[in-house]
């Protein structure tokens, strides 16, 4: 993804404007900053955000699965 999306630091206003994803910003930035600076802390916060997002999606899927199971198996 990093090689095709353009990695421009802007909010995209259409389908054809370059943008950057969380993962590509992380991959490019971690190697360039020293631990302890503000920019480095920001990058680690981005990683935490990614982790939180994937947990949210997993819980949503589990919730849907459990609801579906209850309805399918009867009372």
């Amino acid at each position, binding site marked *: 993804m*990093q*090689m095709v999306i353009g990695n421009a630091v802007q909010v995209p206003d259409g389908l054809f404007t370059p943008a950057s994803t969380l*993962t590509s910003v*992380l*991959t*490019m930035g*971690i*190697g360039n900053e020293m631990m302890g600076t503000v920019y480095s802390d920001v990058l*680690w916060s981005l*990683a935490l955000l*990614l*982790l939180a997002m*994937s*947990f949210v*999606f*997993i819980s949503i899927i*589990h919730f849907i699965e459990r609801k579906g199971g209850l309805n399918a198996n009867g009372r």
Partner: protein
Amino acid sequence: MAASVDKMVADQGIVGARPPQGAPNRAQSEKAEGALACRIALQDTFATGVLFAIVAAICALLFSLIAYIVASGAGKLFDVSFLTGKPEQFKEGGGIGPELFNSFYLLVLTLLISVPIALGGAIYLTEYAPKNRLTHFVKTAIEALSSLPSIVVGLFGFLFFVLQMGWGFSILSGALALTMFNLPILVRVIQQALEAIPNDQREGGLALGASRWETTIHVLLPAALPAIITGIILSAGRVFGEAAALIYTAGQSAPMLDFTSFDFSSASCPWNVFRPAETLAVHIWKINSECVVPDLDAVSSGVAAVLMVCILAFNLLARFVGRLASKNTR
């Protein structure tokens, strides 16, 4: 009331609809039925055609991708000096020798670490675990581990294995980060293989006086072995192409390897697990992001072609071994 229901049913073309009430002659009702059957057959053909077109499009996409990559990298793919040479950062003619070895070495190490753990975990979850909240929690945790983004796993490996444990960028850090990736896939595959064995085998083993452990080792595992081996080879294919988890654990530098040295503490000994090791996928990323070699396109396409060929070989090997092993157990 009945007439309106009949009209509704006839309008929607439901199979087996009664001809409209009050149709006096037989020829008219037969023509209505014939038209209905014709419309249904047409819908069926149209739907089949659309599904076939979708599948054809997917196959065409896959084949064109493989063909494009292999064709553009074909010049370097069969060049022995490319496959065993030293990578270059500024000059032409770089090779991928160390990276190729590192990829396979890392793969073997990862499998050595993850297969026993996954086997133990899957056997426990299938045979021994009671159906309570703890088991449900463990299963959810394994699923959560498998859907983490790979860069997050790599960053955790960076913080823990590289910095905290002090190993630096090393093969061991990379192998442990890939194990975290590989475990959920393997556990799921082995679990499915074990659950597919009918319960008669377990009851037969227990009836013969064997303990549950002996039944598992001597009866169930050999029966599930083809599926397990296929799953291991497929997960190896996935691990082989992993880049994001390895960029910050195994590093982006590949010291030139001296295969005659057995000094385990030097960075040029190939078997030293504490040296940085760049793999094929990481090399593609690195040369496209940071290198300024003149023949960038050729080298990049060559590495991509090698990677693609290796992964295809893994997939074919998995099918071949699976078919062979299941033939032998019959």
